[in-house]
């Protein structure tokens, strides 16, 4: 039964793989620069590597927003996000898994009566906008740079074709790694506080923790999505919606991959902090919206090409619609799961851990009553400690 709850995460992972592989290998496959099998294999391997090795950063951010503390609750949170994504996709509205999962977590917070960390939420929402602007800026800069280099260097057409092919494969693999690292939190992040796996010692060389196994499972689900359904999406996205030349596609994927990496790398965050620089928040962002940002960046550099500002409006609408829809589904889903199926969707006693190492009473408040007797010399004070209250303030746990 415990493992059955993970099905919703696996489903969301499959949907993510099916829809988002197009963002990293779409141009290469649609333009017939790279064969689908090659792209799918590379994408799967690097998504799994990214998820297992680099997925912790964004997961911690989602955990701050709301720690779903019961497995049935996590199941419903993920299922609601998946359903919201599915429904909005059916309605042909732009939707992001990252935005849907945030709405689901907020729905859980509301149901559980748990407070939402507003600064974390604000940071996440700001990051969505920042990611698009950053991708557009990076794509515009990279495009200008490559155009200038190509004008100065006389690269032959067929050699350039071979280099572009190599570039698309390299940035595609990098993009898949970044996608796995950034978006695994959407798929398996809510299961982390209730991870059902035990640590596994692998040949005495390293330990595969429960969280690693969870991310591995999510990564495999994404990979299955890539192999089973992404070809169709790639053909649609690559040929109908975002037809780009292989070189422009290379720039867009490179910019998107860099931004996904920036928003998920703990190593980079540590390096920035160590050098006194402001750290980039580790937030799951939408790879599809970053791709659109990249295309807008190139369109701005190519003067005369119009930018469809309506598309930006649709993206902004998606920011509102996806979380609201996912939140509403989560709230009602949790209600049904709890009251109809009798599942514990919220662990109420989770704040007092039974196995906590030590419990000490909170310290008494400092003395606050000072009485000065009549005729007392100046400077003399008598402190009378306040009596301990009958009901102790909340106990605190000492780790």
């Amino acid at each position, binding site marked *: 039964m415990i493992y059955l709850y993970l099905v919703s995460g696996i489903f969301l992972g499959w949907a993510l793989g099916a829809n988002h592989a197009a963002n990293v290998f779409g141009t290469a496959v649609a*333009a*017939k*620069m*790279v*064969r689908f099998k*090659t792209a799918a294999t590379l994408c799967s391997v690097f998504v799994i590597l990214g998820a297992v090795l680099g997925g912790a950063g964004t997961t911690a951010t989602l955990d701050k927003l709301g720690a779903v503390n019961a497995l049935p609750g996590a199941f419903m949170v993920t299922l609601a996000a998946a359903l919201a994504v599915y429904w909005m996709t059916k309605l042909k509205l732009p939707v992001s898994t990252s935005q849907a999962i945030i709405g689901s977590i907020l729905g859980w917070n509301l149901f559980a009566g748990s407070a939402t960390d507003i600064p974390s939420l604000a940071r996440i929402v700001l990051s969505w906008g920042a990611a698009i602007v950053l991708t557009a800026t990076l794509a515009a800069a990279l495009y200008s740079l*490559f*155009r200038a280099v*190509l*004008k100065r260097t*006389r690269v*032959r*057409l*067929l*050699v350039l*074709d*071979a280099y572009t*092919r*190599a570039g698309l*494969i390299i940035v595609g693999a990098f993009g898949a790694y970044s996608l796995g690292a950034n978006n695994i939190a959407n798929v398996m992040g809510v299961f982390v506080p209730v991870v059902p796996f035990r640590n596994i010692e692998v040949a005495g060389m390293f330990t595969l923790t429960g969280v690693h196994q969870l991310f591995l499972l999510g990564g495999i689900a994404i990979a299955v999505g890539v192999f089973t359904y992404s070809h169709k999406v790639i053909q649609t996205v690559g040929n109908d919606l975002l037809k780009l*030349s*292989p*070189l*422009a596609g290379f720039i867009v994927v490179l910019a998107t991959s860099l931004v996904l990496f920036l928003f998920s790398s703990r190593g980079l965050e540590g390096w920035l902090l160590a050098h006194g620089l402001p750290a980039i928040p580790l937030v799951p962002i939408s790879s599809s919206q970053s791709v659109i940002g990249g295309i807008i960046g190139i369109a701005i550099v190519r003067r005369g090409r119009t930018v469809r500002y309506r598309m930006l409006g649709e993206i902004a609408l998606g920011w509102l619609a996806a979380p609201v829809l996912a939140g509403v589904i989560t709230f009602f889903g949790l209600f049904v799961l709890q009251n109809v199926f009798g599942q514990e969707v919220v662990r109420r006693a989770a704040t007092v851990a039974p196995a906590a190492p030590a419990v000490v009473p909170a310290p008494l408040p400092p003395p606050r009553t000072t009485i000065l007797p009549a005729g007392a010399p100046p400077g003399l004070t008598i402190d009378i400690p306040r009596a301990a209250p009958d009901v102790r303030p909340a106990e605190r746990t000492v780790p």
Partner: protein
Amino acid sequence: MSIIHLKQSKIVQAQIDEFLDTISQASLAFRNGIKEYLDGEIGHFEGTIGEMARMENRADELRHSIETQLYKHSLIPEIRGDVLGLLENMDTVINAEKKTLLQFSVEMPVIPAAFGKDYLALADVSVSAAEELVTAVRAFFHDFNMVTNSLHKVYFHEKEADKISDRLKRRIFSSKLDLSHKIHLRYFALHVEDISDHAEDVADRLGISTIKRGF
């Protein structure tokens, strides 16, 4: 690095270069052939036709091989159709040159000495259009930024060919020759002029491909 196909790219590039060399050599041979015919060196002229046929066969072989390689290894997929169309149309230039020389050989038109100079000038300017076309197509594969530099020269030579042809035809029809002779001479002026028209058609295609390929 079979995924990248760098080795195949270099092989195809070498074949494209050889194809363009062949077209260029055939144009020079065409010019020589016309001169030999006008000079009455029929033996040499027939030899040039044989040489021209060999070059045309070689160009066909190269074009088929390039086509196969481009599809087999999925090279330059986004402009493959344009490139193949370009090479096929280049082939029409060499075909037109060979066909014109063959017509001279079969019909043996009697060209009065007064018009010989004009025919040679027409052949020169038509061959120049074809030569500039080869330079433009070579730039398309080697140095993309130089394509437009050669393209406008193709158009210039084509217009020159039109002017010379027009002047030649007026002179022919204002002469005292028989009407049948006049029509025969006009027919050959048209054929020589056709070379530059073919070059212009390919240049149009190349211009569109250049815009499409723009980064």
